[in-house]
């Protein structure tokens, strides 16, 4: 197909596909990818897609994502798919799903929340309140936070 988009393939690693347009940079932040990167990272933004009108794609060489990282990505890109690549071939394909509860991942936007006091040593705990748009509610102070605006713990 002459219209086909060329995005470099990776030999081995992870491809996060079907990210909502504009969220690729946030995904990079969650993956801890900054300027000082030692392996190949391919980012495609706002490319045409069949399922959604447009999408972002992130390809990371030599990195396998752990459960915690997948949860974080699910918060901001719940329709994403995660493909594991070995020798240029997809060997596993995961649809990630939005977690119902998140412990120690979202920072409560309420400064006066008990979960924001270092000396109390309480992890934040959020429950999914609604999915469109994605919104979580603090289990402790009941503050609402929209996933896209959520501050995530490093």
């Amino acid at each position, binding site marked *: 197909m002459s219209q086909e988009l060329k995005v470099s393939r990776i030999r081995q690693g992870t491809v996060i596909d079907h990210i909502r347009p504009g969220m690729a940079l946030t995904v990079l932040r969650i993956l801890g990818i900054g300027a000082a990167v030692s392996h190949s990272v391919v980012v495609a933004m706002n490319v045409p897609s069949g399922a959604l009108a447009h999408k972002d794609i992130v390809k990371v060489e030599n990195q396998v994502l752990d459960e915690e990282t997948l949860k974080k990505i699910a918060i901001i890109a719940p329709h994403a798919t995660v493909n594991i690549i070995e020798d240029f071939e997809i060997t596993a394909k995961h649809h990630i799903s939005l977690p119902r509860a998140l412990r120690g991942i979202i920072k409560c936007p309420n400064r006066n929340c008990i979960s924001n006091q270092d*000396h109390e040593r309480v992890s934040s705990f959020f429950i999914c309140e609604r999915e469109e748009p994605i919104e979580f509610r603090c289990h402790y102070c009941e503050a609402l936070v929209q996933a896209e605006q959520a501050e995530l713990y490093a």
Partner: protein
Amino acid sequence: MRSSWQGRDIISIRDFSREEIEMVLQAAGRAHPDPDALRGQVMASLFFEPSTRTQLSFASAMERLGGKVIGFSSGKTTSQAKGETLQDTIRMAEGYADLIVIRHPLEGSARLAADTASVPVINAGDGTHQHPTQTLLDLYAIKQFQGHLDNLKIGLVGDLKYGRTVHSLATALTRFHGIELRLISPASLPMPPAVLRELGGLVDYREQEALDLSGLDVVYVTRIQKERFPDVEEYEKVKGAYVIDRAACRALGPEAIILHPLPRVGEIAREVDSLPQAKYFQQAQGGIPVRMALLQLLLKGELA
């Protein structure tokens, strides 16, 4: 009744269904002093910030049922001042008491206490978040004087932005039918969007600045609280925004009631106290039966 109430925590009015609210109010209507009801039971009253009215009201309710009260009334004098975590204080207190009442300046502290303790926990105010027994006694007063909680025109007046009691009351009213809310506040102190969203589709509401009380069944007035303002100048601009005086009350029918969580400063003129619609002092007295009912429900599952 026994199974669902015994050992339960009272943290946020959001946890209450209409049926549960009605059950507490009904139990409050039957609650009476009984020195044998909770004999031998101990209530830990942990007030990390002072609130004389709430603390005395809980203590009075417990004593009238034959129970004992231990506790403190300022975080400065306790182990908190030595750097103990809230969870450690709660683990200590649950060993000394059958039930914990907590007042704490941080939002979410009561939920954390409830998660930590194996005995029931009652939230007596966590920062600007929730004070569910206040809301239950507000509803008790409305029920007592209007006879029902459906089909009412209710005006909330004053600081609707920082006022914890009006947020909880508005949430509670979504459990009932035919409620019309008139939200009267200065433009800088509106009801927060998150609360308005909860009202959406469940309660008819209208926001306005003008102090127009005509046609209301209930006028709920709140103090503009200096301590909640991040900025003193913002407080000075709005502190005297509304004064309910006799002239403003002429718009009210004879069956209407005026409520206030107290203490009031200047927002209800003293000349209003002698009007038949002034019910705020009787409202405050309702705190005793409501808390007597809750203490018995949580400790015994039913009323004696």
